[in-house]
Structures are given as structure tokens and as C-alpha cells.
């Protein structure tokens, strides 16, 4: 067995020697793992508890971090949000927000579309410019690479050149795959076939990277069960 230094400096989950907490956490962890065998009573308990607690937490967070500082304080306690005088403009979004409930009142149900338009309109307005500015232009610029590349010393760099060429071909072929308004035959067909290989390669690599992350998480849980829950029972 390893030395006792292992148990120190644990960050997650941060449970201050509270054995009850550890026991609850450990038992719930096992409840979820029981799902791997099949759906059962324990999993159902954990699942419903989880749904309830998570929504309750979300309500608390909304209350403390959105409702109070954005709606209540600006009007009733301006000093708490560093405002000199009450800010009554928040009434406008409050009214728009109330329109969500229009659905329950016959005849004015269409008013629900006002908040919908607000949310979706905002998203698309920000989305369009952000997409071009943050994605399209920089990504294009980064792809402008010399296919006949020289290393810093000025000598011809074969590997870099190949790498750059592959990259550019990859971008173009994948774009060809996403060309919708023409049948994929001939040159376009060939390019889109190549594009699929590029996509598969990227997906395979993505999968490989993910395997690592997911296993890290499992290790985290097993670490918790072992170090925080079981091991102290023996020592």
C-alpha cells in the first residue's frame, strides 16, 4: 500500500471530513453505477433525487444571481448594486418576460411570440457577426500556408510543405462534401469522397482523445470511493 500522503490536498469532491456527506455521496455513486447492470429501483431513486436537487439548485442560483441583482436590487435597493438611484427600465424586460404566460390566457396566446422573437433575434444578430469575425476570417487566414515551405534557416522543408498541403486539401475537400446543391459526381464526387476520409480521420482522432478524458473521470470517481469512503474504514 502507498503512504498516507495520498489522502492530503484533495480538492474534489471537497467534503470537510464530514463522514455523513461522504457516505451519502458514495451510496449515490453506487446507485448510479447500478444502472450499468440494468434499470432498477436504486437508479430510479438516484435519478429522481438528482432531477429534483438540480432544479432546486438552479432555482436558487437564478434567485440569488439573476432575480435579486438584476430585477429586485436595481429597483428597491439600488445601493446594493452600486447605483445612485432606482433603475425602473428593468420593467420593460419584466413585462416581456411576463408575456411567456400569455399562452395561458385565451386570445392573446400569440403574444408569447414576443419573447421568442427577442431571444432568437438576439442570438442571430450576435451570431452572424461573431461567426464571421471570430471563425471565418481567422480560420481562413490561418489556412493561408505555403505549400512550398521553408524552415527558419531558409532551406526547403519537405515535412512542413506536405503538412500544409494536406491541410489545405483537407479544408477544400471537406467543404466539397458539404456542397449540397449539386449531385456528387465527377470532380465534386471525388473531392467529397476524399472529404469523407478526412472527416473520418478527424472523428477517429476525436474519439481517441475522448477516451482519455472519459477514463480520467472514472478514475476520479473510483479515487473518491476508495480514498474518501472505503480506505478510511480500514485505517
Amino acid at each position, binding site marked *: 500500500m502507498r503512504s498516507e500522503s495520498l489522502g492530503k490536498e484533495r480538492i474534489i469532491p471537497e467534503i470537510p471530513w464530514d463522514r455523513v456527506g461522504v457516505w451519502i455521496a458514495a451510496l449515490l455513486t453506487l446507485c448510479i453505477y447500478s444502472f450499468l447492470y440494468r434499470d432498477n429501483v436504486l437508479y430510479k431513486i438516484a435519478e429522481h433525487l438528482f432531477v429534483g436537487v438540480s432544479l432546486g439548485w438552479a432555482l436558487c442560483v437564478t434567485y440569488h444571481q439573476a432575480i435579486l441583482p438584476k430585477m429586485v436590487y436595481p429597483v428597491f435597493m439600488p445601493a446594493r448594486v452600486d447605483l445612485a438611484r432606482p433603475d425602473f427600465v428593468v420593467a420593460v424586460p419584466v413585462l416581456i418576460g411576463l408575456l411567456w404566460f400569455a399562452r395561458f390566457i385565451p386570445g392573446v396566446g400569440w403574444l408569447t411570440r414576443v419573447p421568442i422573437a427577442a431571444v432568437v433575434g438576439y442570438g442571430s444578430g450576435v451570431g452572424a457577426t461573431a461567426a464571421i469575425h471570430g471563425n471565418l476570417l481567422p480560420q481562413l487566414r490561418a489556412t493561408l500556408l505555403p505549400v512550398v515551405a521553408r524552415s527558419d534557416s531558409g532551406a526547403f522543408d519537405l515535412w512542413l510543405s506536405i503538412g500544409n498541403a494536406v491541410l489545405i486539401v483537407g479544408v477544400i475537400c471537406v467543404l466539397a462534401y458539404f456542397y449540397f446543391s449539386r449531385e456528387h459526381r465527377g470532380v465534386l464526387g471525388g473531392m467529397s469522397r476524399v472529404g469523407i476520409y478526412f472527416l473520418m480521420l478527424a472523428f477517429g482522432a476525436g474519439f481517441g482523445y475522448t477516451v482519455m478524458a472519459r477514463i480520467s473521470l472514472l*478514475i476520479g470517481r473510483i479515487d473518491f470511493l476508495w480514498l474518501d469512503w472505503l480506505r478510511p474504514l480500514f485505517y
Partner: protein
Amino acid sequence: MEQRDAAQDGWLERLQRIDRRYIFILMAVAVIVPIVLGVRLPVGKPTRPVRLVYDKIDSLPAGSVVLMAYDFGPSSAPELAPMAVAILRHCFSRDIDVVAVSFYTAGPPLAQGVLDQVAKEFGKKYGENYVNLGYLPGMVPLLIRMSTDIPGTYKQDYTRTRMSELPLMSRVRSYDDIALVVDLASSDTPAIWITVVNARYQQEVAAGVTAVMAVDYYPYIQSRQLVGMLGGLKGAAEYESLVGRPDEATKRMPAQSFAHGLIILLVLLGNTAYVIARIRARRRA
């Protein structure tokens, strides 16, 4: 002869369609055994993206401010919390101050735990050397707002202390006062930091991401939109070795290796069975 063939085919078939639960058991064993027995393996040399982050922080003068975004919840903490610890140790050991934010509801308490733990090691004070601003919803608009007025955007910190009472915040008005943003993320928030904050305000951004996302962010390193990146537990382990304090991540690497080995073995096994079965079928035909 005919009968033996069929029997073998059956065996191969079964190997290919093995019940998922056997795989689950194998996986559990592969992870539990190294942890319980405390197996050790070396970490290996740090990769370039990790080095870039380390070098960047290492080059900042004392008194600079690093903005750390804790954009992850407890579920990704096994991967990202060790990174946070390693990076914080690096910052605090170089007298760099840290402002923490979160665009993930469950982020702030985690941030607080990690910050307090590392601050204690280095005797750093809350409010002077580090601040946790907590979570606010609506990431993109917030980021835009922070470009002009960070204290005004947050108004109060995570424990609802007003900005005027946090000495560190008097030095941090906008991105101009921030030397580096480090986004520790379990979702696509680094892309938002890049597209909004790096693109618009030329703020340097580094990322610590889960291993899943690592592959997505290579293009950004190459296009220099990201200073560097820590990917997954391995990235954290590498940073730990750069900072010279092997910890959590380093200890967990052996179980990681075992589990990877298992999956690769399974894939090879499945494919061997598949190929043999196909060759047999073809030969019979």
C-alpha cells in the same frame, strides 16, 4: 470438419457480440486495480502546447493579473481541477494575482475550493491576491461588457462582497489590466473566449480543456489565437512536472494507461474476430 467450423464460427460470433456488461466489468477492474494497489509509471516529457502555457506564465512580471475562467462543473473536475491547482501554484509562486470567473453555474464553488487551497499554501489573501467573481448567465454579452468595465459587470463577488471592498479589483478595470486569460473548460467556452475576447480585444487566451476537446483546439494554437493549451489529465500531469510538484494527475496516470490498453486490446480482439470470420465466410463461399 463441417461441425467444427460451425462451432468456431459460433465462438467468433459470440466474441463479436459479447454482452456489454462483460466489457463494463473489465473496465472497472482495469481502473480499480492500479488505484487500489498504487501502481506508478513515469509521466514523460511535456508536449509543446503545455510548454507554451508554462512559458507564457513564467514570462509575466510579478504583480500581473491572470484571469482564470472556471468553466466546468464537478463532473469534469477530475480532469480540470488538477490543472487549476498546478497553474495556480505557478501563478502564486511567481506573485501573479488571480481573478476567477465562471460561465458555468457549478463553477464558482469549485473555484473557491481550489483557490483557497492553493492560496493557503502560498499565504495569499482573498481580495488582495485573488478574487472569485462567481457566475453570471449570458456569456457573450458579459464578455463584451467586461471589455469596458469588469467590476461594473459583476458588481459583487461570489460571496456577495461589493467590488469597492476588494483591493485587487481596483487594479482590474478591463482586459487591458489582464495579462492572460486561462479558460479551464469542459465545454466550448474557449472558442467563445477566442472569438469574442481574443478577436475583438486582442486579449491573450490560454486554455485548459478536457482531453475530448483538445483536438478541436489545435487549429487555434496553430493560428496563434490560443497561447497554448493543457489537454486532459495528461496535460495536467505535464504541467505538474513543469511546476515541479507531481500531484493528483501524476498519480492517476497509471490507471489511465491500463484502461487505454484495455480498450485497444478489446478493439483489436473484436477486429481479429471480425476479420477471421469474414475470411472464413469468404473461403466457404
